[in-house]
């Protein structure tokens, strides 16, 4: 009895509570946006924007600013560039993502070599550490997550319509260009938030894995969204718990939990068929 209670003692730690709280909000956000991105074949935008955030965080560290305050506007601008490059330069989205992404990484590397002092700080962002999230970052994450979630709920039908059939959405009066801008902007903010959970290298996993897991099982779009959010949030809880007891990196464990859910969903779908 006492050993069981002892096992749950870790829940009383402030850093664990902060990790669960911020991680759940951010994961839910990634799961919802990820579904739209995967269905629009924009899965890799998360990867591209996280690479840009590498450069932006380096910029923040270089000038001594709080990195996320620099990363959010820079990544927002980068998301706008990706959209405009796709439209105006008539190139495929993956090529535009590749260009912006490589410029972001290259800028980060140059700034890191120029500074000669913050390399350790910068590289800590590559793999994130949700267990080290501060109180201020929790408030920032929850505040921004709630704002983004509210926007998704309010514009749900426009986002759904544009994702399903862009041309028809236009005909029904949906301002599809604005919806595209909204989607990429929300993704930009979400990517920056998710860096704290899993790090730059694994951000795209939080956007893609819950969505593709839900797509194996869902019997409707709303169901897919609920399943995607559930998968993501449960993975965060499992990942943080496992990482605490087994002394593993939290971000990577969260991603592997998501991957396990995907494998299970795929297996279930194959058996059901």
């Amino acid at each position, binding site marked *: 009895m006492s050993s069981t209670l002892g096992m749950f003692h870790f829940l009383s730690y402030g850093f664990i509570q902060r990790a669960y709280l911020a991680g759940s909000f951010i994961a839910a956000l990634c799961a919802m946006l990820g579904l739209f991105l995967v269905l629009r074949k924009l899965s890799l935008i998360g990867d591209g924007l996280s690479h840009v955030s590498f450069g932006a965080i380096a910029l923040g560290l270089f000038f001594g600013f709080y990195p996320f305050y620099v990363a959010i506007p820079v990544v927002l601008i980068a998301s706008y560039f990706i959209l405009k490059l796709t439209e105006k330069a008539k190139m495929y989205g993956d090529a535009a993502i590749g260009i912006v992404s490589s410029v972001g990484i290259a800028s980060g590397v140059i700034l890191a070599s120029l500074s000669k002092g913050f390399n350790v700080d910068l590289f800590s962002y590559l793999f994130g550490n949700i267990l080290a999230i501060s109180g201020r970052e929790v408030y920032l994450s929850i505040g921004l997550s709630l704002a983004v979630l509210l926007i998704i709920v309010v514009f749900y*039908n426009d986002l759904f*319509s544009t994702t*399903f059939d862009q041309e028809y*959405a236009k*005909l*029904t*009066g949906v301002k599809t260009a604005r919806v595209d801008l909204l989607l990429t902007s929300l993704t930009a903010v979400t990517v920056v938030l998710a860096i704290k959970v899993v790090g730059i290298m694994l951000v795209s996993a939080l956007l893609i894995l819950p969505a593709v897991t839900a797509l194996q099982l869902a*019997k*409707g*779009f709303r169901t897919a969204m609920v399943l995607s959010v559930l998968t993501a949030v449960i993975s965060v809880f499992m990942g943080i718990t496992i990482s605490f007891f087994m002394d593993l990196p939290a971000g990577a464990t969260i991603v592997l939990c998501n991957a396990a859910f995907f494998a299970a969903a795929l297996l279930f779908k194959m058996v059901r068929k």
Partner: protein
Amino acid sequence: MSILSVKNMSFSYECAEVLREVSFDVQKGDYIGLAGPNGAGKTTLIKAILGLTGAYTGTVELFGRDMRSFDAWNRVGYLPQRVNVFNPLFPATVKEVVGLGLLAKKNFPKRFTKDDGVKILEKLELMGIGDLADKLVGELSGGQQQRVFLARALAPDPELLILDEPSTALDPASRDGFYDVIKELNEKKGITSILITHDTAQIGRYANKLLYLDKKVIFYGPFADFCQSPEMTGYFGTFSQHLICHQH
């Protein structure tokens, strides 16, 4: 009453002429077959009418209003070419897809009501697919999917229905059944219809007018006139014209 009026419409895409001085009027209750060879500009014409292409010259009036300022899109139903619009892996139910047709009637924040749910089911019943409401669209047959998309086009109770090659990917029996549905909507509900097709002979069995396009208007009028037109004999040759009209 003229539902649609197109005057001197020309459209080019990267220096290539797609439409040249196209003019025609569509009256209330018309059922028009829009035919022509590949690359004749049929889909471009329809997309220009619906405001889905870039700038064109000439004018388009929908329900008496210039298309550029037209915003009553709930009066127009559109069934796009299926192959261009549908990702079969998309996890949308039939109900969710048909509901999209009602968005044209919605103001911000575009929420669906119980009445909308009833309306969606009515349209599915009208299409004979009421039992498929909760199925995933990607799991349906080609013919069933076309009926879903037609139900979506009909959801806002449009006065003008535009269909872009709806019989593509349908077997002959499903195709005839689909054409019958459109004919019934035209005759019983008075929905003005424009149907793009490659099959000039087939559409003659259903439509009351033929608009034959080959970058410009080659023929516009009743199908019977088409068969008796010496100009069309000159254009198609006696044998082809006879073949088309004989099937009609």
